[in-house]
């Protein structure tokens, strides 16, 4: 995992600036742990037979696990998770997770827009598995101090 140093405030950010570039290994263990933590026990996230009968390629990751994991590189980069005021995404592609081994979620967080008046930054997240985008229009709005 590599992240850039934490930006202290809005004036340290520029549109297009990359704030984080992270890789996250997803395994069946990850899915089971997320199921327990979130209370989402849909069997398509742990049972291959049920997943296949539902027309899926096999067990897939919870979309909300992907969404929750995708923002963690940004959270580390800004060093203050409390700065997040909004977070939105579309789920564009399921992530099959093999019974053994892992798949890699690759996330890049880039400053998309700055609003000095509102004191907010919009950060756009790109999340891919094997070159396929799994989230669409994933955006976080951060409330950050303006040192100027």
């Amino acid at each position, binding site marked *: 995992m590599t992240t850039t140093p934490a930006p202290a405030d809005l004036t340290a950010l520029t549109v297009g600036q990359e704030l984080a570039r992270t890789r996250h290994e997803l395994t069946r263990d990850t899915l089971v742990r997320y199921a327990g933590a979130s209370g989402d026990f849909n069997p398509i996230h742990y049972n291959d037979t049920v997943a296949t009968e539902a027309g899926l390629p096999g067990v897939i990751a919870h979309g909300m696990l992907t969404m929750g994991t995708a923002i963690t590189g940004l959270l580390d980069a800004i*060093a203050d998770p409390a700065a997040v005021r909004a*977070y939105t*995404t579309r789920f564009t592609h399921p992530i099959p997770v093999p019974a053994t081994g892992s798949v890699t979620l690759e996330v890049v967080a880039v400053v998309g827009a700055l609003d000095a008046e509102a004191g907010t930054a919009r950060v756009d997240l790109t999340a891919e598995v094997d070159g396929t985008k799994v989230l669409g229009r994933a955006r976080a709005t951060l409330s950050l101090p303006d040192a100027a």
Partner: protein
Amino acid sequence: MTTTPDPAFAGRTYPAGTAHTVSAAKIAEFARATGATSPLHTDPDAARRAGHAGVLAPPTFLVSLAQATEAQYIEDPASGIDFTRVVHGEETFTLHRPVVAGDQLVPTLTVEAIRAAGGHTMVTTRVDLADAAGAEVAAVRSMIVVRGD
């Protein structure tokens, strides 16, 4: 035989649910499950030094409470939603302030919209979370796609 979502539910707001106390243990579990490593999620002293009344919930933590609240609609046979045909389309969290352990949140469910699109039905729900005094804390908006035949 398959059912389709009943459009008559659109615009319906359910009575407010019972207050849910946000737990430090659930926050720690959720942070670990999603790889959120800040000590603010697990260390009460670090959270207090940062000005929070308790450990801080990760940004998507409220999904559990939101989904439990949505169940009163999704799992109602009268809603016409066949859960085996549901996929998650979009999700949006709006946080008016950080959510911390010890918060008592009252959830209120609204079915915002039900619309047909290309043989499928898009259903949008919103769960508003208010504190004990009635102040807005957060909103969780979910769009699910119910696949047609």
